[in-house]
């Protein structure tokens, strides 16, 4: 079943020389319970797409066309209060820069409670808080810490836990693991995968890290210059990448894997 359908989505940034188009009418969809990978070079418009879907683009960014259907309802024409009801209950997001996405002057627990009070009308019980931390493998003492007392990886996990509080059906992760070393990164991703199976939500996973996407995703969308240039399953992409950019991506990845002396043609 289609959970999210993006049709002809265009996004522009207003500049002194008129609007500059960052996303050129792209189409894709996310099914219930699916993990979709969104890859592409830096500046190709991945974060812009994610923010447009959540409708949290800040000026000078604005949506210039298309529709974003979530369970059949168009997010782009929703009223303010509908948007408020939709965000975090139906789709939640973890920002690219987890380092800046927590309020520096509030302890972590307060940031959970702020969300709970605003959206559930009550505070979370200590047992519930512990449950959310367990999801992302964090200890309880994190609750009384301030953001600056946590490592980058811990903050990123707090961000993920905060995104899960209202049990969203779609979780958008914008490069949630870029700031992390490989071991922590794998650890978090494995935790996320387990969680995703357990709670059966969908994930739109944005990253440069093609190997991770190939391992985790049900389908992969490749963007370049604001366009979707390819979308297919990991195995199909590996077998016959159609777009030159995808071939390049795979080749560079295999170069790394083979220690620098392999070429895509030698592999099958």
């Amino acid at each position, binding site marked *: 079943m289609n959970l999210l359908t993006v049709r002809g989505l265009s996004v522009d940034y207003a500049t002194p020389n008129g609007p500059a188009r960052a996303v050129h009418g792209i189409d894709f969809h996310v099914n219930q319970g699916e993990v979709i990978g969104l890859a592409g070079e830096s500046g190709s418009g991945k974060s812009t797409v994610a923010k447009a879907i959540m409708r949290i683009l800040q000026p000078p960014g604005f949506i210039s066309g298309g529709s974003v259907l979530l369970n059949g309802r168009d997010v782009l024409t929703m009223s303010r209060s509908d948007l408020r009801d939709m965000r975090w209950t139906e789709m939640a997001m973890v920002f690219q820069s987890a380092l800046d996405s927590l309020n520096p*002057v509030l302890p972590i627990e307060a940031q959970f409670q702020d969300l709970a009070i605003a959206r559930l009308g009550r505070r979370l019980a200590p047992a519930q808080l512990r449950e959310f931390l367990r999801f992302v493998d964090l200890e309880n003492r994190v609750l009384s810490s301030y953001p600056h007392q946590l490592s980058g990886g811990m903050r990123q996990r707090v961000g993920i836990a905060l995104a899960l509080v209202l049990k969203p059906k779609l979780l958008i992760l914008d490069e949630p693991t870029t700031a992390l070393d490989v071991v922590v990164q794998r650890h978090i991703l494995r935790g996320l995968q387990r969680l995703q199976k357990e709670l059966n939500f969908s994930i739109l996973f944005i990253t440069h890290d093609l190997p991770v996407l190939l391992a985790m995703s049900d389908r992969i969308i490749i963007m370049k210059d604001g366009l979707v240039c390819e979308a297919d399953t990991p195995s199909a992409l590996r077998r016959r990448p159609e777009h030159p950019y995808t071939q390049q991506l795979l080749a560079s990845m295999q170069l790394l894997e083979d220690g620098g002396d392999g070429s895509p043609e030698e592999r099958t």
Partner: protein
Amino acid sequence: MNFLLSKMGLYAVAGWAVITLNFLIPRLMPGDPASALFARFKGKLKPDAMEALRQQLGLNDAPLLKQYWDYIAQLAQGEFGLSIAFHPEPVLGVIKIGFIWTVGLSGVAVLISVVVGTGLGAYAAWRQGGRFDAIVPPAVAFLAAFPYFFLAMILLFFLGLEWGLFPLGMAYGPYSAPGFNGGFIYDLVSHGFLPCLTIVLASLSGWLFVMRNTMIGVMGDEYVCLAHAKGLSRRRIFVAYAMRNALLPSLTSFGMALGFIVSGALLTEVVFSYPGLGYLLLKAILSQDYPLMQGIFLMITLSVLLANILVDALYYVLDPRTRGGR
């Protein structure tokens, strides 16, 4: 804790520098203020008072280091010498009264100015580009373009002289006896209103613009944007996410601006004949009362220093990042 300790060390050094400068300046002054004084007061000063004055102005023949040591020892006992203008009152007694008036007036004025200024600045930023933002900040900036004494004279002329809404000077009227009763408090407030308003109007724009600009920066931060996306109430975001974080940089500039405000407040006192340190300083200068001047300078600089310490302590309370940790 380390943060606070190192700050305290810094203030201790600054305090020592202030005290030492206060010792050195009359001794390094060109010309000889003391001879002029002797000439003026010959016959009027008692011999022992004259001797004390000589000592204090560094006119004895003891080595500088010994003089310095005696000076510190005297300060430690709260001994500032005798005032000439208010002879034979001791300087400390004269300053004490002026100090209370100045702290009362400037303290209230600065508090009002900070609260109102930051509040207006925060709200202007919150409604950036709106009608409030288009009118209030420019109006406040216009007021701040006038110097303190000019603003004071305008207010005095119109509200005091022309329209007779407020008394023209002093801290309380000639017929009201100081005491804790409604009549006297009313008298106090009506006398303090114009000087207070002057200081508030002249210093308001600093807080407003610092707050508005940092607040606009903070509102573009990701955690504020995320707080909106999570559906937190606007009130909560305004107070605990945007304003709370914008207050921190404002506080730093507060400490730095305090010196300017105090000097402005002293000028204001002169215009309104308000019996605080500024007014006393004018009297001291007019009657070449060096001991009193020295005492007032010391008092003013030390209190600005103390206010800065308080601001730092407040910063320490408000910003979890300065409280140490890992």
